[in-house]
């Protein structure tokens, strides 16, 4: 039904602050694109410029290949779900959903039919006469969704729609949003800073940093091959461990003095950052031999966080200030204060240069991800 193209989209606020530095993004028909990034990186700003609530300073925004830079929000045929729902407090649920249609001059009978159908879809039928304040948070959220759906817009925009709900309801609504979006086949842009929400909902994930797109791709692609150190640190929880390493010929020297067999083709002495996810650090079963090309990290456990299925071990490695986090099997018995030998295999490692860019394939042998 609708595609969305952003080219070199720039937003400067009246106070001179540039919140978006040229965003390029193409959203395909029926796709759900999730935008994540740290607080203040411009996610909401981006969404609001898409909605037409903020003007565009430079660049192009097109919906279905039609330039919409200068159209009013109502003319862009988009619907937005706000973090605090923004329901009209003095209107019933029915009127909340019908208001947009009324303003567009849809016939009364049509409005009734569409609102009722949407209410059915969202299981709101029994609540149509209530006022927003007579609803629970989850119900309000559904009404906000209903208000967006009933308009049958080209594009859905969500700005952290679930962040006011409790954890359980969030999971439930997350599934519901996914189900509805697929069923209605509407193109959607979804802003969140919740990792799980981002990974599970997204057809495509956009990681933003300081008003720029850092990387864009499927959640698994971003997880497996983060293009920058920033993305690597942002995607995945707990965050990736970063170890400063130095090139020594065909090997990399680790902070604790150990050396890892890994040819980079870089000059001796080059400083790099080695990234390894907590879930890719393993322990060696008693008596098992060290695999070839692997290196052991002898650490001391400082803190453990049992999560049930897994246990997170925060460990200290000689020569490194930050703790090295390892995700161990929940059964694995570790105690705070004990030493722990973690195994760094040559696989699933990420190397970044001094600028934080991922090392290109041909220079980094380990980049063949299993």
């Amino acid at each position, binding site marked *: 039904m609708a595609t969305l193209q952003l080219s070199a989209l720039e937003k400067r606020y009246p106070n001179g602050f540039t919140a978006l530095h040229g965003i390029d993004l193409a959203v395909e028909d029926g796709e759900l694109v999730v935008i994540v990034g740290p607080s203040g990186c411009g996610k909401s700003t981006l969404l*609001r410029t898409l*909605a*037409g*609530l903020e003007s565009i300073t430079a660049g192009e925004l097109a919906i279905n290949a039609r330039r919409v830079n200068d159209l*009013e*929000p*109502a003319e862009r045929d*988009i*619907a*937005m779900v*706000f*973090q*605090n729902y*923004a*329901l*009209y*407090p*003095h209107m019933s649920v029915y009127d909340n959903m019908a*208001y*947009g249609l009324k*303003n*567009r001059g849809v016939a009364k009978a049509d409005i009734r039919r569409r609102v009722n159908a949407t209410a059915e879809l969202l299981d709101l039928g029994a609540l149509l006469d209530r*006022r*927003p*304040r007579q609803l629970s948070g989850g119900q309000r959220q559904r009404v906000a969704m209903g*208000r967006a759906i009933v*308009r049958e817009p080209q594009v859905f925009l969500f700005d952290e729609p679930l962040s006011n709900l409790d954890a359980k309801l969030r999971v439930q609504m997350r599934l519901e949003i996914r189900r509805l979006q697929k069923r209605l086949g509407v193109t959607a842009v979804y802003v969140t800073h919740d990792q799980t929400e981002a990974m599970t909902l997204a057809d495509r994930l956009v990681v933003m940093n300081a008003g720029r797109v850092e990387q864009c791709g499927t959640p698994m692609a971003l997880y497996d091959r983060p293009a920058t150190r920033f993305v690597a640190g942002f995607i995945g929880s707990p965050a990736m461990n970063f170890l400063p390493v130095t090139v020594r010929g065909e090997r990399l020297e680790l902070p604790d003095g150990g050396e890892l067999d890994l040819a980079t083709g870089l000059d001796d002495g080059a400083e790099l950052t080695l990234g390894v996810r907590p879930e890719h650090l393993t322990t060696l079963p008693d008596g098992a031999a060290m695999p070839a090309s692997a290196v052991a990290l002898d650490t001391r456990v400082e803190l453990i966080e049992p999560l049930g299925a897994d246990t997170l071990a925060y460990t200290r490695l000689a020569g490194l200030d930050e703790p090295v986090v390892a995700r161990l099997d929940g059964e694995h018995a570790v105690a705070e204060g004990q030493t722990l030998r973690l195994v760094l295999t040559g696989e699933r490692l990420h190397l970044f240069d001094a600028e934080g860019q991922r090392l290109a394939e041909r220079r980094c042998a380990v980049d063949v991800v299993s």
Partner: protein
Amino acid sequence: MRYQRPGLDIASHLLLAVGCGLFFLPVWLAFAASTHSMSELSGHVAPLWVGDTGLANYARLIEDPVNSLGTNVLKLLANSLVMALGIAVGKIAISLLAAYAIVFFRFPLRRLCFWLIFITLMLPVEVRIVPTYQVAADLHLLDSYPGLILPLIASATATFLLRQFYLTIPPELVEAARIDGAGPWRFLRDILLPLSKTNIAALFVIMFLYGWNQYLWPLLVTTDADYMTVVVSLKRLLTTGDSPVPWQDVTATAMLAMGPPVLVILLMQRYFVKGLVDSEK
């Protein structure tokens, strides 16, 4: 907070009763006096009980022109009503729009506009009465309803109150309405007005009373009895020169003058409560 002690309950009710009695006493005295004839009143202390002239005094005041005024009280009440309603409705309409513009629109000198309005708080009618009279005279507004209403119609207080209320409306609500295709007028009519219902009701009561109780300006701007207001006429009734004061007329007119404000308060109070229950606040 509620304290549950029987002794306290009785005491507070007693206190309330005494207070009510004290407030009601002058009203009762005025009412009692208004039902006596002139001869019964002159030279006596104020009667505590109703007299036998009864409502005849009222009927006379309403139907026949009062000698010293040149018009009947019904006309006076009508004049007051026109003025008070004009001022209340006008003030609210203007303040509503002024506050709407100041809060929701970005235009050059917006700040300055707000402060200019705010500064007028320091300039009540009494302070600017001479230039205002001059302007009213130049515009041929003396002895007319517009002359009674227009100079009092702008209200910094109401603008300020509504502005404070508008500022509490979450910006997302405005944005949701924009996305729903509500233009500025629709937003005002469909969202802002219903939300400020309670505030408007309260303002209406205050402004109606303010308008009804105006004395100085109507006294100055009207010379024609056809435009005299009931509050002004009360003073006029008392100035009789050498002849005795017609206390029964004064008190009866005062009783009648109290009617509309009381009615407005009673009616609006119900609306008030409804507004409070209905709205989100």
